[in-house]
């Protein structure tokens, strides 16, 4: 048996807000019989645009039913703006957690809610308001959906992506595409964290640390592939003195590597006014 929390079992055994609202203000439908789970969510707003009533119908396992039931309890009384901030992690947290392989149940809840809100705003119905390139053809999962679960849940492996949105769980042909999406988002996240960590005015110590980090992350791996390395010798104001090691020492391309790679990267991640020079002593 799965390691379900008491709250999951309670919502499964006694699901709240079961049914469909007639003439709803928003309706969202996700999943299908083929996928093994499906959720139909309807809500009604009051005059203050708050969700005054919400009902669901779910085909699926115990955690799919529990996630849907939990979602309805969570969003009752919320404004549309509040409801659209609900993430799949919020649903899982509300239930005291879900087994990793069942996280896709919480994602199904978030997706249905998103579609119901989109339906309220645009009047459009249909299963794929969120269109886009389909990556996993077995379960009909789009690139956008994969990106979303990777971002929302900080996923780093294909297995996790499969657990969260099923992509890659059928024939497995799309696993390479998923790896690339994860890789792309990882890079974005890293460069973003590097740039957000950068304070407006760096102290000397902060600057040294940041330069070392940037050399480590952005430059060394590249040089090491060619059997070389780089070392930070000194910093004087905006002047950064470095020295090449191994195959890079005495390399004819060293001057351009200094300008086009080292300086460019340090300017991107540390400070725009840096000038990099090679230590000739």
């Amino acid at each position, binding site marked *: 048996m799965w390691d379900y929390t008491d709250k999951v079992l309670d919502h499964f055994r006694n699901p709240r807000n*079961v049914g469909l609202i007639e003439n709803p203000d928003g309706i969202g439908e996700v999943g299908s*019989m083929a996928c093994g789970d499906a959720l139909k969510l309807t809500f009604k707003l009051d005059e203050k645009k708050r969700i005054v009533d919400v009902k669901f119908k779910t*085909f*699926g396992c115990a955690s799919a039913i529990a996630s849907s039931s939990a979602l309805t309890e969570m969003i009752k009384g919320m404004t549309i703006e509040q409801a659209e901030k609900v993430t799949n992690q919020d649903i899982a947290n509300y239930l005291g957690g879900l087994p990793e392989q069942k996280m896709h149940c919480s994602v199904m809840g978030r997706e249905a809610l998103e579609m119901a809100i989109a339906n309220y705003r645009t009047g459009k119905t249909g299963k794929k308001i969120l269109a886009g390139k389909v990556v996993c053809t077995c379960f009909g999962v789009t690139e956008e959906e994969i990106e979303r679960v990777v971002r929302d849940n900080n996923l780093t492996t294909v297995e996790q992506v499969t657990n969260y949105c*099923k992509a890659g769980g059928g024939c497995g042909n799309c696993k390479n595409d998923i790896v690339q999406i994860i890789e792309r988002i990882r890079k974005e996240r890293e460069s973003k964290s590097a740039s957000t960590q950068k304070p407006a005015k760096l102290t000397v110590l902060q600057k040294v640390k940041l330069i070392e980090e940037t050399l480590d992350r952005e430059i060394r791996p590249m040089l090491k592939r060619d059997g070389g390395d780089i070392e930070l010798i000194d910093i004087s104001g905006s002047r950064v003195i470095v020295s090449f090691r191994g195959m890079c020492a005495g390399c004819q391309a060293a001057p351009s590597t200094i300008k086009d790679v080292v300086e460019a990267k340090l300017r991107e991640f540390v400070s725009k006014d840096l000038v990099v020079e090679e230590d000739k002593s």
Partner: protein
Amino acid sequence: MKNVYLDNNATTQVAPEVIDAIIPFFKELWGNPSSMHYFGGQVKKYIDTAREQVADLINAEPSEIVFTSCGTEGDNMAIRGTAEALGKNRKIITTRVEHPAVLGPCRHLKEQGHEVIELGVDSSGQLDLTEFRKVLGKGPNIVSIMWANNETGVMFPIPEIAAMVKEQGGVLHTDAVQIVGKIPIDVRKTPVDMLALSGHKLHAPKGIGALYIRKGTKVNTFLIGGHQENGRRGGTENVPYIVGLGQACVLAKKFLQDETTNVAKLRDRLEAGILASCPSTTVNGDRVHRLPNTTNISFQYIEGEAILYHLSDIGVAASSGSACTSGSLEPSHVIRAMGVPFTSAHGSTRFSLSRYNTAEEIEYVIEKIPAIVKRLRDLSPFV
């Protein structure tokens, strides 16, 4: 709350008589049968007796029985041991609905360069014997086909298959884990070369099984080591469980009649009761050529795991081929191979009985199921 155990194809309760037979081999008779002293030596005869008891259930010679640790080991030994003995470039023919214990080794051999053919089944879960004959071909090819399916109970025509394989000079292994003890098996009449059985499917403990190897069949040793099992499987014998398996086979033979009469009657009553009280419900697989204890029922528009949890809440243990119960995302490979539509596949539920079930238990399940099905259908967006 009642406890109604209807998951006997997963595992069975150990028979009290088997437990009684095992205990002395933990308490007093714990010697090593290979030892050159009375203490170990006195144990050996019990292994001999157990070997006779297992052989007797399938009408084999005791020398044709090798004790294993489980059904999976028997299947691996048979398939990989034969492939190794026969050398490269052998065709291996199996079916898409085999247990992973057979599909796993076959696919492993495929990666190693053997040609492996997986035969499909029709919507009733049956093989097309004309197609089988076509792919079989002449020569010492290896065929591994289960005698009865664990999920649906559907029985393959092993006697016909065995005759065809013999005629073409092939080697036939059958995974008989589900059928032994439920239907009379006679390896003298049905010329299979190897047959794997498992203790815990017939009221012996988990951790013991046997492989029947017909005299003269070439199988390479799998567990290389000591002289035990006539050099066919090294390792000190699991004496208590071997004795337990022997005792379980004695009981199985005694109650064989019971399986095809009483157990079959209870299964039929359960099946009819469910079909009558729950609309949009179908039985998966051939209902004629089927184990007497198994029924696989699809409840349309609802999902298997949810059914199992509700059943468990009222004390009923069953199993499902739905995606969610396995932790994978697709319904069972058996149900998919039969082409069961998705509307039914995710709600497939297996009830497998044993001689320990009672009519009262079956009536309890029949009485309770409609409310569970209705509850889940009220929740389903497809109803």
